């Protein structure tokens, strides 16, 4: 029985580690400026976690196989050094690894989430609602119109509750159902939720952030590759959570300017 268990543990360990190591299922290619920090952190952690995983499981398997009771008079033996090597391994090895990863990871994290707003960023207002994302650009006047919850009329395209009748700065606001941005341009999203909690996640962009009802949450990133990517909601928001998505379209600056013009004509 012990041999069977030991063999099973060994097989499971080797197969799993191989699948991780060969990146058979893995993150999509990174299209962001900050993403290399995350990928590096994940890679380092994967290596140290992988070593710990394989070592611990294989040692466990070996001991299970080796120290079965074979009915002989062999005396039991204490682990050499007793408890001290265990404490030392844990504190020194694991502790050192933990400290190193923490130090580097903190910088990566702060670089994304604690960076001051970039004055050159293109500002886009994002609203999450049950069950879609809508995006607002300031339009030609560069000003976002005020939003009024009592004027929201989804069926007629007034997702943000703008008041163009009385608010001139709202009249040229561009409201779109896709997040269209120019490549290599810093973006500053201001995220707010209309109804319940939602989240914004683009795996390629290495970015994720919850929307919090009652708060305006800023999020900054720069995309480095053109293309079309999916934005998905990762915060359970009700029955349509699985179907809550929008498309991120990263365009060349010329294509983006054209898109903006086309959108403005439709508002």
């Amino acid at each position, binding site marked *: *029985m012990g041999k*069977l268990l030991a063999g*099973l543990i060994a097989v*499971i360990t080797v197969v*799993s580690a191989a699948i991780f190591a060969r990146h*058979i299922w893995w*993150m*999509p290619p990174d299209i962001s400026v900050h993403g290399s920090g*995350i990928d590096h*952190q*994940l890679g380092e*952690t994967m290596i140290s976690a992988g070593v*710990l995983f394989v070592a*611990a*499981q294989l040692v*466990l398997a070996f*001991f*299970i196989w080796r*120290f*079965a*009771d074979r009915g002989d008079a*062999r*005396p039991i*033996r*204490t*682990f050499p050094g007793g*408890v001290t090597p265990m*404490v030392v*391994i*844990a504190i020194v090895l*694991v502790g050192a690894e*933990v400290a190193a990863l923490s130090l580097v*990871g*903190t910088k990566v*994290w702060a670089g*994304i*989430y604690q960076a001051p707003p970039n004055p050159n960023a293109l500002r886009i207002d994002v609203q999450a609602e*049950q069950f879609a994302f809508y995006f607002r650009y300031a339009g030609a006047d560069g000003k976002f119109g005020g939003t009024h*919850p*009592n004027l*929201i009329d989804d069926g007629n395209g007034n997702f943000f*509750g703008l008041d163009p009748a009385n608010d001139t700065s709202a009249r040229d606001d561009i409201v779109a159902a896709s997040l269209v941005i120019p490549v290599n341009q810093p973006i500053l999203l201001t995220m707010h939720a*209309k*109804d*319940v*909690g939602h989240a914004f*996640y683009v795996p390629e962009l*290495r970015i*994720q952030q919850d*929307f919090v*009802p*009652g*708060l305006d*949450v800023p999020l900054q990133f720069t995309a480095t590759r053109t293309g079309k990517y*999916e934005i998905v909601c*990762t915060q359970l928001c009700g029955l349509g*959570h*699985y*179907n809550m*998505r929008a498309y991120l379209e990263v365009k060349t600056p010329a294509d983006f300017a054209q898109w903006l013009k086309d959108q403005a004509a439709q508002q």
Partner: protein
Amino acid sequence: MPDTPRPPLTQPRETAAKVSELKHVPPQTFMRKYVFSVDHKVIGKQYLGLALVAVCTGMLLSWLMRLHLGYPEVAIPGLSTVSPNGAPGGVMTPEYYLSLMTMHGTIMVFFVLTTAPFAGFGNFALPLQVGAEDMAFPRINMMSFWVTLAAFLVLVAAFFIPDGPPLSGWTAYAPLSAVGKDAGPGQGMGQTLWAISIALFCVGQLLGALNFITTTLDLRTKGMSLGRLPYATWAWFITSVIGLIAFSVLLPACILLILDRVGGTSFFIPAGLVISDRLQPHSGGSPLLWQHLFWFFGHPEVYIAILPGFGIISQILPAFARKPLLGPRVFIACLAAIGFLSYTVWGHHMFLSGMNPFSATLFSVPTLIITIPATIVTLLWIGTIYGAKLRFTTAALFCLGFASVFVSGGISGFFLAQPSIDVQLHGTYFVVAHFHFVMGVAAMFGIFAGTYYWFPKMFGRLMNETLGKVHFILTFIGVYCIFMPMHWLGLHGDVRRYSAFTDEYMKGDIPLHKFITVAALFTGAVQLIFFVNLIYSRFKGPKATDNPWQSTTLEWATTSPPPFDNFGGHPPTVYRGPNEYGTPSPSGDYAPQFTPEPAGR
């Protein structure tokens, strides 16, 4: 001169007074013996019975969920009769899937993983292990079970009301859970019932924790110093302290949630929300407040779920290794460290929640530090196996399996503890893999180990070892097949709590989901072997002696099952610690706590 027993190291306080207080008359009627019993052994079995019903319900829900995820277009036979609104034509609606998921999580975390290892085994074994006749407050103990049962019934009632069960997950984030029916299907009365149920559960567990702590401190028998307590008792004791604080926070949080839902308050709901085209009449609340309150409870809660497992493994493994646990004092110190640190890490569930990003670093550091005592504990088990003479009983196999799956589950936590990596993995199947490995598998293995180990003491009969070994091996393979692939899905970006995978980049992973579904159904079917073994052995299993496993702790000093007052009016005296495996004595290759020889120690 006859040998006189050595005087005990410390004299437990007021033992004589407590003993006489507890010397109640044995119950005579059926109701008093098996239903409204104050006997901790009966109450422990009642908790375990409740957990058994709960785990069957929770597993059934998980099969339905996995069927839908793997094969969404297939009509599930019979489902449209059970719920015509939830599954018209047998195909699950999205809200039905989410409410099954919510009830699965709630039932499993509360009514299985907190109830069985802590309330179930703890109630049965702790008074025996300290040499007491019963818990310190037997009537409060009885009340704690019935309150917990009431909580379960209130929760399950949500299945039968027109609005159906809630769909906000076991985490019930506000404002989805707080605004009421406008938030959509599943957020009517069902969510209120959920909050009432959890509040009742908190009361039940608080009462239980009081009993555990008082009994451990005050009712130890002669010679049972704190240093000689069995490791399972230490784990239950520390878990009770954690629980006392954690449940004290969840209880008012649930009350505030109920007030928001029915009392017009706005603890968790800000102004200006438009839901179902209606402006919500609330203002001033904070959704983040719910998250802080919930996770301040929620993180210690997962340690409440696993710490008894640590104790049970540390009790059982040495018995079947025939070798002492390596580093018992370090082990207990690690349990205490984990318990203390568990209160400093709750924000690691909230890195991306919108709280100040600087807090992420503050919470990440203690989360990573907890890795250290958890690693030590795992190494102590591995070090115990070194040089041992392993007897591969089913209980032992589940201990060894526990070590393996705890390593797997703990290592994925290592990733999630770092905010920079959490950016990519939060809300994905990587998280689902992590918590299922540590809770759904490791903690479950602790429950299985405890069942196979203490079954003879509870029922006077041994469970069938062949069935047990088959159960173990197939379950071990099954759980790895279910949960290891979820890491890969998470790395790919597949989002959790989705009732279907309609996003382009997720569609290609559906074959892996089908594999997981098949593995889940297979593993579920294997549990039938366990149930058959339980029922058959209860009535027809071979009779057990007092100490079939040659264990050292006090519960094995008495008969299997024990008499009503545990030790027949003769509480044992303790002569040594619980770790004397491999110490030859007249009893064999070990020296139990309750036999006088060999002298010394």
